[in-house]
């Protein structure tokens, strides 16, 4: 008698799971900073081409998110925050996620090249590859500096938006790149402080897990200084007007006050981590406020 083990029936993944694979919430900030980079550029962009360029930034970010989830399915399964994602929850097979990610990345870069220009397409390709290969594959599981260097991946969108509009790169988008790059460590380390146990369970060497809370708090305070300089630089160098200068001064003061509060704190077991959560929430709002201010300022004083 021949016995065979039948392969169980698996449902094809739902389209909503493919959407979840693109990390739509993370994409919001990426699309917004890319849009602001484009709107701050000193040229008028055709609405259809502008829309397509922003769509390509969104699709590229979605592709990077999908490939990140494809590679990190084992880590996601160990973390409470991520274990309900399509792959760890078993709603999708890994091959589908890989094909979807690679296909979307290729499509977004080619479409950017057709609709905007090769420079924007090139920077988009670099940002996707940086996020997937440098951050996800190389750094994330190896060093607590993962989000410091990996932060560059999330800083590319204003540069891409500007390049899509003008065909070249200038000082302002480079400073906006620097701002997002230097904003990433205090933003992520604030999150890591109150999600420490999750990262520790998954074995991700985030700063609070490897170096401890005290060192992380000091690093948050220290990184806020160059971030504030990068935030003020567009105004100090005369690339924006007083409106941006005023907004950035107030918003950065609030950021610095929250960062100092987090830096000087020491917590015991069962602490609600309220200042850390406040810093994290403000850091998200901070970027929205600053990028909005850049665009409004450039439009008002243009």
């Amino acid at each position: 008698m021949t016995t065979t083990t039948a392969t169980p029936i698996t449902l094809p993944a739902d389209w909503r799971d493919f959407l979840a694979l693109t990390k739509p919430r993370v994409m919001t900030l990426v699309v917004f900073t890319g849009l602001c980079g484009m709107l701050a550029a000193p040229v008028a962009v055709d609405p259809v081409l502008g829309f397509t360029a922003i769509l390509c930034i969104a699709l590229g970010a979605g592709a990077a998110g999908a490939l990140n989830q494809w590679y990190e399915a084992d880590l996601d399964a160990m973390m409470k925050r991520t274990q309900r994602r399509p792959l760890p929850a078993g709603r999708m097979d890994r091959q589908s996620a890989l094909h979807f990610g690679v296909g979307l990345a290729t499509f977004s870069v080619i479409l950017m090249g057709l609709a905007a220009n090769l420079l924007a397409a090139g920077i988009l390709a670099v940002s996707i590859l940086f996020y997937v290969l440098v951050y996800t594959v190389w750094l994330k599981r190896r060093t607590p500096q993962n989000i410091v260097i990996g932060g560059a991946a999330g800083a590319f969108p204003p540069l891409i938006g500007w390049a899509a509009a003008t065909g070249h790169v200038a000082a302002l988008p480079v400073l906006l790149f620097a701002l997002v790059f230097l904003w990433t460590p205090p933003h992520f380390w604030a999150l890591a402080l109150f999600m420490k146990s999750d990262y520790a369970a998954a074995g991700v060497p985030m700063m609070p897990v490897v170096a401890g809370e005290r060192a992380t708090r000091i690093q948050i305070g220290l990184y806020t200084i160059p971030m504030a300089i990068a935030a003020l630089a567009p105004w100090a160098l005369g690339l924006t007007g007083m409106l941006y200068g005023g907004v950035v001064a107030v918003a950065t003061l609030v950021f610095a006050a929250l960062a100092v509060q987090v830096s000087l704190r020491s917590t015991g077991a069962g602490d609600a981590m309220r200042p850390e959560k406040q810093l994290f929430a403000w850091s998200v709002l901070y970027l929205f406020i600053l990028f909005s201010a850049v665009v409004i300022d450039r439009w008002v004083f243009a």
Partner: protein
Amino acid sequence: MNQPDDASPSPWQKPTPAQSEAIRKRQRSRSIVMAVLLGAFVVLMFGISIAKIKAGMAH
């Protein structure tokens, strides 16, 4: 003997009618989404072409 001589055993479990219906439903919804996306892509390519032609004429 459980299997007929001319049939090799299938590695796949035979789906129940309920599972077949669920698979068909999932495939249908994915097909609809794919059709909408392809339609949007065609419209977008048309828009890009018009914008590029206009930009070319302006130069």
